[in-house]
């Protein structure tokens, strides 16, 4: 597929929901992709095909259906591993999503490894899912949670990291590869190099990055990496936790139950091989298969083309939004340092009022704190409006947003 606007325009036909209208017969302009993306026919069909033709539980039974479903499930694991360059499939654990992945690490790695006085470092632009699990852990263990601060351009102050690493008490540094509010792309290589030199483990929240740019886990060199399927065309309720094997071997199980065991006796149990030790119970089989179909779809387009398309769209949107008097965009305007997530405030109008008014024009725009209240505090705002793009968005979508903001200006007499 070529990276021309035409081919991206054509792929809109794969998304049935984009053909519907909303409110008073308005064209649907979906701009909440940082929250969740729409699904193409290829993904929807993979799920229905599984339920119509192959449905059976995996890993245990010997009959034909079970063999087919196991093959499809494990095949998706291989596709996803290849997509983000995970060399060892034993290190790829299926979870419900990024939130569950980080909680799994906080529980199964954190409990046996974190002690009183230890420090866990996160950043000011994290999603609540990369803050709250660490608050729970550090409070339980009498450890400390510290933050890498952010400058007004939305970039992290890595001097803060140096300061904490110098204490010799840091056990984990955890950060998102792309902010879900500002779109800032974190300089992961730099952070990981500093942490490695200090013998400190790193966790990356890849929920916003993996759907929008090429990510190579083998090159990155972190120790934990988490991402979600539903933000990259796949169904909800399925995500991935990758853990370096040498670290995974030091972790306790997360959930006890079926499929994660080798032998169970009355008072003791031995564990299944990796990654199954961490996949207790019947997993989300259809969702994993749907995730595999989403990976096929994105692979066909090419992640460099996805990034290129979104950079063009983001540049166009920033240029057009910047022309509106009284509209403030947060974070850097250098599109090489950010993804297609644009947070803004429009004069003194509350983001909920902006979103409500333009919803009537068919536009799905997010308003609120975006599960990043620590960042809202840092920006000194109660909330922001947020537009976020994906492969099916076009310049016409940006134009619709700009036109609808003119209506907001009229209503609030700006």
């Amino acid at each position: 597929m070529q990276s021309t606007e035409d081919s991206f325009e054509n792929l809109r036909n794969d998304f049935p929901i984009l053909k519907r209208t909303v409110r008073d017969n308005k064209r649907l302009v979906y701009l909440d992709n940082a929250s969740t993306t729409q699904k193409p026919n290829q993904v929807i069909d993979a799920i229905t095909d599984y339920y119509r033709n192959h449905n059976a539980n995996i890993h245990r039974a010997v009959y034909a259906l079970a063999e087919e479903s196991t093959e499809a499930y494990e095949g998706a694991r291989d596709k996803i591993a290849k997509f983000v360059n995970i060399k060892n499939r034993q290190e790829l654990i299926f979870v419900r999503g990024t939130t569950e992945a980080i909680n799994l690490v906080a529980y199964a790695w954190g409990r046996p490894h974190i002690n009183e006085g230890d420090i866990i470092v996160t950043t000011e632009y994290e999603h609540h899912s990369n803050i709250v699990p660490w608050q729970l852990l550090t409070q339980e263990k009498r450890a400390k949670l510290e933050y890498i601060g952010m400058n007004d351009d939305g970039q992290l102050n890595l001097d803060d990291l140096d300061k904490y690493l110098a204490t010799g008490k840091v056990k984990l540094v955890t950060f998102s590869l792309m902010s879900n509010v500002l779109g800032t792309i974190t300089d992961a290589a730099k952070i990981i190099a500093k942490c490695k030199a200090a013998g400190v483990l790193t966790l990356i929240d890849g929920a916003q990055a993996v759907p929008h740019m090429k990510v190579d886990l083998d090159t990155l060199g972190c120790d934990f990496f988490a991402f979600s399927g539903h933000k990259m065309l796949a169904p909800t309720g399925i995500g991935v936790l990758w853990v370096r094997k040498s670290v995974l071997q030091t972790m306790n199980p997360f959930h006890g139950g079926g499929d994660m065991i080798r032998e169970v006796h009355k008072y003791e149990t031995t564990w299944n091989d990796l990654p199954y030790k961490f996949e207790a119970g019947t997993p989300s089989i259809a969702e994993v298969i749907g995730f595999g179909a989403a990976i096929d779809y994105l692979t066909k387009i090419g992640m460099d083309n996805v990034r290129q398309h979104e950079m063009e769209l983001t540049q166009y949107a920033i240029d057009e939004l910047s022309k509106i008097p009284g509209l403030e965009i947060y974070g850097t305007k250098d599109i090489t340092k950010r993804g297609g997530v644009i947070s803004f405030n429009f004069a003194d109008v509350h983001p909920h009022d902006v979103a409500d008014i333009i919803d009537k024009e068919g536009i799905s725009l997010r308003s609120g704190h975006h599960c990043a209240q620590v960042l809202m505090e840092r920006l000194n705002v109660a909330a922001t409006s947020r537009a976020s793009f994906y492969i099916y968005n076009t310049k016409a979508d940006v134009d619709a947003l700009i036109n609808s903001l003119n209506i907001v200006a009229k209503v609030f007499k700006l």
Partner: protein
Amino acid sequence: MSGTDIYHEMIVDYSRNPINYGEIENHDVTFHDSNPLCGDSIDIDMKIDDNKVTDIKFHGKGCAICMACTSVLTEITKGKSLDDVRKIEKHDVLSELGLEHLQAVRIKCALLSLKVLKSALYTYLGSNLKDTADVDTLKTEAENLY
């Protein structure tokens, strides 16, 4: 209710120039609450003499709907006896601003202040009355407002 019609003159004006906005230094009761999903956040302070609300002020952050409804609610409440304040219902606030048919996701913005007011009332009555059963009813009423 659809279109931009909920954003009529009164709502926009109240959001820009809220009524009874501020704090009461020597209040008899104060209460704070917020909507976890959207972040609207309201504090209400009240001065109460002879079982009457002699002064009421609010502060906080919220969308235009939230600010307008809180303004109207404080107007309705001021000067009323505590018995009459107890009787204030959702409809009293919504009808004042023509918001009777507000969509479900915005109703929380409109009624946060009423929830805070009722919570402030039970806090006050709880520390001044012995009839706790009655106070508990009021607390439940506040919690289940929306």
